[in-house]
């Protein structure tokens, strides 16, 4: 299983949270910005984590979005699991 990239995660964040003038950019500093500051509420994060689980065939804890509070932390969490399974 290939590792998850920032672009992969950005695609899922966009699918779950929409896109448009009212939605903060996922480029640049966003990788270290908390999901809550990017406007993702708990339900949007449930949607995102569920997409990640399906795409990479892994199981995340229910509170994964709290443990991994930024896109970078989410990438590290998911890739850690993928590496451990390899």
């Amino acid at each position: 299983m290939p590792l998850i990239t920032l672009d992969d995660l950005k695609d899922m964040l966009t699918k779950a949270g929409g896109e448009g003038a009212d939605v903060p950019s996922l480029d640049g500093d966003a990788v270290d910005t908390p999901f809550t500051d990017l406007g993702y509420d708990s339900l949007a994060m449930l949607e995102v984590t569920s997409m990640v689980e399906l795409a990479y065939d892994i199981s995340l804890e229910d509170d994964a979005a709290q443990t991994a509070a930024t896109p970078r932390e989410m990438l590290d969490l998911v890739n850690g699991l993928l590496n451990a399974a390899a």
Partner: protein
Amino acid sequence: MTATAVVTGLGVAAPNGLGIEDYWRATLNGESGIGRITRFDPAGYPCRLAGEIGDFDPTEHIPGRLMPQTDHMTRLALAATDWALSDAGAVPTDLDEFGMSVVTANAYGGFEFGHRELEKLWSRGSRHVSAYQSFAWFYAVNTGQISIRHGMRGPSGVLVSEQAGGLDAAGQARRHIRKGTPFVVTGGVDGALSPWGWVAYLSSGQLSTGDDPARAYLPFDTAAGGWVPGEGGAIIVVEEAEAARARGAAKIYGEIAGYSSGIDPAPHTGRPQALPRVIRQALADAGLEPADIGVVFADAVGLPEPDRAEAEAITEVFGAGAVPVTAPKTMVGRLASGGSALDTATAFLALRDQVIPPTAHVTDPAGAAADLDLVLAPRQAALHSALVLARGTGGFTAALVVRAAA
């Protein structure tokens, strides 16, 4: 003294027009929004016509953040709310958040969204179902999304009484005004034009099977043979009269002057239908006599038996041919709870411009309806008050009296 509930803003999303001015112009011109379904291929179904809203691009009207989590009909409701607030000149962030309520009606929920998620459930498994399905399908979702988007945290709710819903919501909005909430967003928007929703409509056994959009929905006509579903509705801003004046409301369309609701007895009991009683109660609630009503917006099912019952109820209260009766929904189809909300908005536009919009397509009023003064072409009239009638599947019956601003 009881607080007066006035209407200060209207937002319309209808198959023959988006926004009140487009809709009103089309309606007075007799332009129909009914046509063959394009949202999916209707060829394999016994009924193929609907009132679809064709030219609505949701990305132009609602925040991108809300796109993944909203059904089509919720997007229409959010757009109509924006138009109504703008029409009212109301800026929610300037008002007390607990002084603004949202009471909408809804009858079908988010069918198209639910259809998509059910498809995922059965074809790919439960883990593929969107987390947003938890609320996107739900009857209360329009109220919830409007409330969240505009920070309206006063007492809110949803009324589910099919076609009667738009009137029941307006009645509930007036209750909130009387209990001290100065600003209420009400109305109703429905739409279930997906294959799954279509099957729900078909189960009524009342839909028109014809393919001619001009002959498919002919309430009160000798050729009446069913109705055509449509999507859309109206959002209406209701305010306590003094509060509206105090904030400098741009205009006052009029007042929600009277309301009543009832439910039909089970058919086998032989007891009388609720409609005549509900009409009389709504008139009494408004402190008006039948002669004060300038026009009746009929529920207009489009089937001989309910049409006869409605015509008889109107004639029983008003006398034969004594009040103009119209059904502009002949141009958009029956929009469930959105239908009576749209009729309410239309009634206020009729009061504003002193003109009765026409009943389209009907050429030959039948039976008991022959006693009605059915308005078949736009008619100038001195209108002070209008009566809106609605009957929902299951016997829900409601009547609303609206009165022009003094």
